[in-house]
């Protein structure tokens, strides 16, 4: 009974609070948090992909949503302090300006800031993580490793390893073969979207 009352009272408080003031930020943050948890979990549960691929894909998905979450919060923190000076200059209600700016900041973040930040940061971070993993496992960074990158919406692609394998083994043949195999793994069975 005690637990039931606790849940009931908290649910009532949440509903009343949302009824009084519902910020556009709440829904998008909730979506970012759950996507950041659920999508990597689903990726890791995929039995058709190999372990390395799943780890990279899950990390990337989690990272994308972490960037989204941080971007929403940061933009909100930057934009909201503007409501007081704007209210002073225009004489409009600060509460209404705050509501309006909040929705605008969400739109700006979803449409421009998140895709821009992801475009700029995901590739270097993923390459950094890959290099770190290679170093930890004692592998030499493969030639062309700076272009190795996976994306959550990558297309399934089968690379014929035999077509790139040379019977005359050069010094770097082993690392090249590793790179091709790794890349083939990283680019398979990712899901679209974010």
């Amino acid at each position: 009974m005690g637990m039931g009352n606790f849940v009931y009272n908290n649910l009532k408080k949440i509903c009343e609070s949302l009824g009084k003031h519902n910020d556009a930020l709440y829904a998008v943050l909730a979506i970012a948090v759950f996507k950041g948890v659920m999508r990597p979990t689903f990726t890791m549960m995929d039995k058709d992909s190999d372990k390395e691929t799943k780890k990279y894909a899950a990390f990337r998905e989690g990272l994308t949503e972490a960037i989204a979450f941080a971007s929403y919060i940061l933009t909100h923190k930057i934009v909201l302090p503007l409501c007081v000076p704007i209210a002073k200059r225009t004489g409009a209600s600060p509460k209404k300006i705050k509501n309006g700016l909040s929705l605008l900041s969400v739109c700006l973040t979803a449409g421009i800031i998140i895709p821009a930040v992801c475009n700029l940061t995901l590739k270097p971070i993923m390459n950094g993580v890959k290099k770190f993993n290679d170093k930890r496992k004692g592998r030499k960074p493969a030639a062309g490793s700076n272009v190795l990158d996976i994306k959550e919406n990558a297309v399934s692609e089968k690379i014929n390893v035999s077509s790139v394998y040379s019977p005359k083994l050069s010094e770097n043949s082993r690392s090249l073969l590793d790179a091709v195999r790794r890349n083939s793994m990283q680019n398979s069975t990712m899901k679209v979207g974010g």
Partner: protein
Amino acid sequence: MLVPFVNAITSNTFQTLAQNTDACVKLETTLKAVGRPAFTLVDKHTDKETRKYAATKEFLYQILCLGIYMAIIPPIFKNRGFKLFQKIFKNEQMPAFRSAKQMMAYHHLAYMKPAERTIDKNIKYKNLLKLGDKDGKELTDPKTGKPLLEYLFGSEDKQIKPLEKRIMEKEGKMFDLAKGSIELSSIVGSVIGLTILAPEISHLILHPIMKALHLEGKHEKSADESKKIDKNV
């Protein structure tokens, strides 16, 4: 420049939009559908064909998400969630709104100045409230027993003036609990819809659409021709 901007963001329409989870999520998904493909197209690290393929796929994915969201969330989560909360909070003296839409109509009108509530474009909200509860009885405030339409439009017979928004807020006549129940149902629905349902459903639909548009085969052909390792999309 600043004044028209402030007038726009403080307008009733914008304010109602900002307070409505459903509208915010739709707007966010639409912007994602435009923003993400646009940024994919300008990414110089990838070749042109791959960029086009990725941008189309991302655009279709977000549009599908929006479609799935619009088809599933309002009828299932918003309405059924509101009905569930009406049962949970049955002792909290909420008016017996017949649907979430009817509650939102009341809230939308309450947010306006009394003179704006009677203009033609808002008649649809008044008509929705006139339908009464699910048994067709007039909607009343359980705390006072007064009709809700009287709060919004006053009564010439009883010589009662409509209530201003600030008075309704002060006297608890905005029914925050009912409004909050709808918003919480929408947030839960959005999370389930956009993190579990939409990705899974669109994953099933996306590949046939891409094939029908001759984009999937084209991209694979391009990948084979260039023999490049970096074929991410």
